[in-house]
């Protein structure tokens, strides 16, 4: 094989600490290399053209590009060599940017290391073979996990695009966090007025099947052909017949149930519909509080239900759905702020979270939209907002900025003045992050028009003083300690990944960061893809996001799914294992260890042999490292290819 080597400067990204010309010169001495050069931006159009020209001019059979990580541009260059008529697998990359030039400044060592990496790549390339993908048919249905605003958007866009959509929502209603909000920034329009109709659309769309109060139990398969096991949790109410009339709620004697929808500002009944606009508007029983389920006595709801849908014997149900793509929109949860002992750790009733305050502001909330202190029901005069509670704080393991608290705090300060014109709001902040259209103007309005007193500094302590709370903070601009007598303290609690996010990621086989947020395919260029084909991200499951960003990502994910499904068949990755039938002794160890069931036993002239089903094989190579005699080899990562890399690096 005649090999051409292209060593990229990446502007100064590589060239600054790697002598690319020297690397190219060294490469010319390697076996098989007939052409080597250094180029300014190999990925640019002229850079790619240079490769195409060189292939033609030097009759190259393979190309090595030493540049950035293959995760960045392997696809790009594979297309380039394909353009010149080469099979795209006759290409290798040496990562001399992320793994060399960006992690050290020693030019001599870096150059030396780059030469090694190029040598490794050429040795591997010498053993590469042309590979050809197989085609397989796909199931054009999509699963949306999570029914918040991002999931709703993705579902509606997919359904409008003609796809069958299956939506699975953990709680008994869709709407997510947005449904809990009173108003939205920076327009201060009513949250349920803009979200409500879309929720109804989900319920009424002929292409959407909604499983509320359900969870993902198991995911099998791969892009184009996933098989999903959905657990429909027992609601003890037959939803087919439940009309959502709410009589059961009126009559239920157990009125101490946890009201998660209202962020535990109040209590609800054991049988409940979370809120009047819930979709689906169906009742469910909370077994932890239902006297009938706990003690076998009561049964009032069954007696009063006009459609007779109460079923105390109901069990969880499992349903299997087949889809070709998955959009994950599982959102976020609030940081558990009670780790802040200095803010009372949850001991003071008048220290509440921003989302609790939101429920209080909402006309459909437990206080009917009246701001009242939880301790005594009085209207507060001084309301103190503390920002960055569980954000930008390493000491509680949350060093990241949640990003939207500055905005909702400004909104809540404005709403406070609207509700209680005599009140005074104080906001302790570190920096105001208002980087969106009309965002900064909005925070300015909170100060200029609504007289919100912004104090730059964190709060060190809250403690009760009489019937007030003394908030002790700093005003770093004045350079001193300040105290505020507060009637109510609202904590702008940060966002964290939703409970169970990592378990779901394991089922989806996607990566997540150390905080449990899902990893996108590329931070800039693949914001809604994951590294698992056919699985996409929407909304805050990928990182904290405000409503416009979540909706934008929901639509983007939908576009990705629609794009994927625009073909009737997908090409399988040819980097799969194949069995050398002569060498196989039929011991079945590969079959035993394959995680995908991609290897089957076949009869070959009366002998047992293994055979790989190419469209099922995912290319992990466990079989190859299991087979003692190496009869099954993972294409593009064969034993000989890896050994050649080892030999290239370790020359005794």
């Amino acid at each position, binding site marked *: 094989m005649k090999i051409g080597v292209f060593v990229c400067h990446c502007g100064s990204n590589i060239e600054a600490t790697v002598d690319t010309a020297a690397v190219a010169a060294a490469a010319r001495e390697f076996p098989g290399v007939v052409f080597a050069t250094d180029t300014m931006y190999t990925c640019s159009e002229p850079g790619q053209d240079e490769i195409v020209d060189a292939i033609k001019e030097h009759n190259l059979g393979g190309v090595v590009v030493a540049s950035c990580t293959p995760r960045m541009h392997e696809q790009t260059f594979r297309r380039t060599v394909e353009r010149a008529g080469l099979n795209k697998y006759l290409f290798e990359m040496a990562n001399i940017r992320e793994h060399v030039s960006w992690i050290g400044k020693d030019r001599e060592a870096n150059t030396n290391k780059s030469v090694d990496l190029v040598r490794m790549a050429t040795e591997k390339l010498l053993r590469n073979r042309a590979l050809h993908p197989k085609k397989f048919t796909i199931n054009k249905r999509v699963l949306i996990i999570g029914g918040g605003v991002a999931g709703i958007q993705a579902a509606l866009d997919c359904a409008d695009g003609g796809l069958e959509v299956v939506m699975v929502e953990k709680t008994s209603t869709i709407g997510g966090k947005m449904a809990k909000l009173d108003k939205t920034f920076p327009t201060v329009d009513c949250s349920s007025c803009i979200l409500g109709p879309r929720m109804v659309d989900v319920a009424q769309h002929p292409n959407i099947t909604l499983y509320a109060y359900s969870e993902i139990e198991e995911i099998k398969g791969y892009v184009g052909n996933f098989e999903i096991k959905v657990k429909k949790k027992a609601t003890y109410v037959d939803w087919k017949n439940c009309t959502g009339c709410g009589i059961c709620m009126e009559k239920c004697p157990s009125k101490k149930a946890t009201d998660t929808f209202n962020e535990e500002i109040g209590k609800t009944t054991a049988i409940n519909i979370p809120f009047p606009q819930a979709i689906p508007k169906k009742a469910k029983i909370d077994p932890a509080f239902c006297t009938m389920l706990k003690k076998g006595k009561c049964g009032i709801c069954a007696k009063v239900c006009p459609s007779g849908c109460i079923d105390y014997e109901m069990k969880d149900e499992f349903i299997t759905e087949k889809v070709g793509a998955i959009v994950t929109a599982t959102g976020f949860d609030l940081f558990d702020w009670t780790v802040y002992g*200095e803010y009372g750790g949850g001991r003071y009733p008048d220290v509440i979270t921003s989302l609790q305050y939101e429920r209080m502001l909402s006309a459909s909330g437990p206080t009917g939209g009246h701001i009242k202190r939880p301790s005594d029901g009085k209207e507060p005069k001084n309301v103190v907002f503390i920002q*960055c509670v569980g954000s*930008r*704080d*390493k*000491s*509680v393991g949350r060093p990241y900025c949640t990003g939207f608290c500055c905005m909702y705090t400004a909104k809540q300060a404005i709403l406070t003045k609207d509700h209680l014109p005599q009140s005074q709001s104080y906001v302790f902040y*570190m920096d105001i992050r208002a980087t969106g259209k009309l965002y900064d103007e909005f925070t300015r309005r909170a100060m200029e028009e609504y007289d919100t007193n912004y104090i*730059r*500094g*964190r*709060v*060190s*302590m809250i403690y009760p003083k009489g019937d007030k709370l003394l908030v*002790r*903070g*700093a*005003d*770093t601009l004045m*350079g*001193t*300690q*300040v105290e505020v007598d507060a009637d109510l303290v609202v904590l702008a609690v940060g966002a964290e990944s939703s409970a169970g996010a990592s378990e779901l990621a394991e089922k989806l086989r996607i990566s997540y960061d150390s905080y449990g947020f899902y990893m996108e395919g590329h931070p800039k260029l693949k914001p809604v893809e994951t590294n698992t084909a056919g699985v996409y991200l929407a909304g805050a499951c990928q990182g904290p996001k405000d409503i416009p960003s979540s909706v934008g990502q929901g639509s983007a994910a939908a576009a990705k799914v629609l794009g994927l499904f625009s073909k009737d068949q997908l090409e399988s990755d040819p980097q799969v294992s194949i069995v050398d039938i002569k060498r196989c002794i039929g011991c079945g160890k590969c079959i035993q260890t394959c995680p995908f069931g991609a290897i089957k036993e076949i009869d070959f002239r009366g002998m047992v042999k293994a055979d790989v089903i190419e469209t099922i094989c995912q290319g992990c190579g466990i079989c190859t490292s299991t087979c003692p005699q190496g009869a099954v080899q993972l294409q593009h990562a064969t034993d000989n290819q890896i050994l050649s890399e080892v030999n290239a690096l370790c020359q005794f």
Partner: protein
Amino acid sequence: MKVININSSYNSEFVKEVEEESGQKLNLCYQCGKCTAGCPYTDEYDICVSQIMRLTQAGQKETVLKANSLWLCATCESCTARCPNQIDVARIMDVLRHMARREGYGGTGRVKTFWDSFLSSVKNNGRVFEVGLLVNYISHTGRFWTDIDLGPTMLPKGKIHFKPTEMQGKKEVEKIFMRFKEESAK
């Protein structure tokens, strides 16, 4: 107010020394002010602790080491306990005091005189001799009325002794101080 040139007034040696002696990284501080917010001594400080942090970060040696605040910090640890960036601020205050002593700043404050009297009591007796300490402090400050009012209450309670308790190893303790002096002189 003083206008300063941010690069020419930056004392990099000072920053390095503080970081080395305290084991803390000054750039972790993002000036949230939570240390100042919790500091019970802010009332007495001439420069609040978050600004001490900022000035130190900015290499403003003179201003920092001259600050009275250094001598009013009681190491109550509330800054350290609550710093979102887990900076041991109290330790930095300690280190700044060490430097101020070495470089001859802040020698007039009453707190420092008290601390010095305390240590000389330990040096001489191996343990603190409370009455001796008070007498020593008074003789250095001339504040004769210090706690004189407490005498009548305290005397009958058997809490006041006019002789230090005897300990055998007091020479050992004294040697610690002597060696420390020698080592510091090196």
